[in-house]
């Protein structure tokens, strides 16, 4: 696979160069530089740069097919690496496999099929701590405190729970290792509208407790309102990076990506 990046950039690319992305190297927990990645021979991402500071809440928004989820999967070692680096806590984790990356303190909640449907709620959480010798009681208590419904439904099969409850379980499973960075892929997808706000509140709470969050969201406006910083991704490239509120008020971002 050639890493040929000479594709014609779209028209609006010209006025937003990579220089608009400030260098935050000194404080970065996660540092993605010039990342090229994709699936098999198909390249999706080109020269993606992204930072997440310790305890920061960052979202990636952008149109369908922009490669938002691919960024997240690339950080977690689930794509074919084609160039660039991923640094986490000062350590180069580029191209490592997910089962190694999970040891570094990154938790990942995929968008679909993110619980073991035939296992009970408790067993799902135990699987979250599989890499430890024993299930840490304090982590389990913390998850139950955060999501009381999971404690109530401990012995229920995960597959029989509602979408919102499954999403909480998936997050709870990822939190069992108390990661310093949590990757959330479309946490509001498939939720009933009245549950979406509740889900965002819970993510706020996780972030308030010190866990850095990198989130991909279809629900761009709400995600940008909540986060510290946002990236706009299109055609597998960085387009804009700014504070969430600034992106929300940016005329061009509104017009091109947020539907006015």
């Amino acid at each position: 696979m050639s890493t040929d990046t000479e594709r014609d950039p779209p028209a609006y690319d010209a006025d937003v160069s990579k220089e608009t992305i400030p260098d935050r190297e000194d404080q970065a927990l996660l540092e993605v530089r010039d990342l090229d990645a994709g699936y098999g021979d198909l390249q999706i991402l080109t020269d993606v740069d992204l930072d997440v500071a310790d305890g920061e809440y960052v979202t990636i928004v952008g149109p369908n097919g922009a490669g938002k989820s691919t960024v997240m999967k690339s950080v977690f070692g689930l794509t074919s690496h084609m160039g660039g680096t991923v640094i986490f806590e000062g350590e180069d984790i580029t191209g490592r496999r997910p089962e190694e990356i999970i040891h570094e303190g990154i938790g990942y909640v995929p968008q679909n099929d993110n619980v073991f449907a035939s296992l009970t709620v408790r067993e799902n959480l135990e699987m979250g701590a599989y890499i430890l010798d024993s299930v840490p009681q304090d982590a389990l208590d913390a998850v139950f405190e955060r999501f009381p419904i999971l404690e109530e439904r401990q012995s229920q099969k995960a597959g029989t729970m509602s979408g919102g409850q499954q999403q909480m379980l998936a997050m709870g499973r990822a939190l069992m290792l108390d990661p310093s960075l949590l990757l959330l892929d479309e946490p509001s997808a498939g939720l009933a509208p009245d549950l979406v706000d509740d889900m965002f509140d819970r993510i706020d709470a996780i972030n308030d407790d010190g866990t850095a969050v990198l989130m991909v969201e279809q629900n761009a406006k709400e995600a940008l309102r909540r986060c510290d910083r946002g990236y706009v991704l299109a055609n597998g490239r960085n387009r804009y990076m700014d504070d969430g509120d600034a992106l929300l008020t940016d005329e061009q971002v509104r017009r091109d990506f947020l539907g006015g």
Partner: protein
Amino acid sequence: MGIAETYTRGRQFAITRPGSVLVALVGAVLLFDLVAGLATGRHSFSGIGSLVWDGLMRGLVVGLAGIGLSMTYSILNFANFAHGDYITAGAFSGWATTYLVAGFGRADVGALLLVGAGGSVFGGTLGIGVTTTPVAVVAGILVAGIATVALALLVDRTTFRPIRDADGITLLITSVGVAFALRYLMQFVFGSDVRGTTSQPPAMALYLVDGAVRINAHDVALVVVAGALMLGVHLLLQLTKLGKAMRAMADNEDLAQITGIPTERVVRAVWVIGGGLTGVAGYMFILWKGTLGFNDGWLLLLLIFAAVILGGIGSIYGAIVGGLAIGLTASVSIVWIPSAFARAAAFLVMIVLLLVKPEGLFSGRSTA
């Protein structure tokens, strides 16, 4: 709740599930025939009891042997046609050990190791049985399990692992090749004759209305071993970290991987546990039926597939229940049809039940 309402509901059921109604009808006719036969003395209670007992024993063998097949199916996503020959391999390795332990000093070691190939030694002459040579039998069970684990791991390492990510059909066809290679290698080594392996085991008679149902020591041994192993597998899957990881992997392999479950190590554990159960099942099968030939596992495999599919492929509980259903059908069906068709009846029951409940009795590819 008027009669009209019940009638409407019944009618609704008959329209939406005509298959179920037909199956129930056929079942009712057969049951009526059986009851009538018992009432008129055409069938004896003890005769039926003996068939049911025989069916239960056959079912335990099929169910025990089916667990390994179901496990590898649910974790590795392919139907392993070499499974039947793993059964035979377990039987030969175990019985070679039993012959050696029981007959050491009384017969040529070579002949003992080849399980009396060509009629050189007879199990009956050596007096092999669970009561007469218990040490030889226990040693045989252990070796059957261990040897089959080694074989399963060896075949996986050399043949299946390099094509782990290939699709199910590729793996399936490869496993057919492995099956042939193993079977004819065993025929080459041990010969193609079917030999008797045990002496007549002691039996007790349970009196049932008009006669006796005979239960022999090997039936009891089968019940004990199969029951213990089934319980053990259940506890392993439900209570241990490894068992839960196996179920998690059967459920969603991608998620298992991002959760940090070492999938390749779980695969190895599946071959160890599945292989061990399969080898012991092969040994117990031969102990129970008293004869051993190089085709035994292969012929049993068809019944095992029927049982596993009937139970819902991938579910180990389905394999056990499906095994009992298939075993009982194969034995009890001779009440109504000539015994030559007994196997066919087992498959007929499988087909009919799948038409009525296509997902199997325990639906889905989950080990739980």
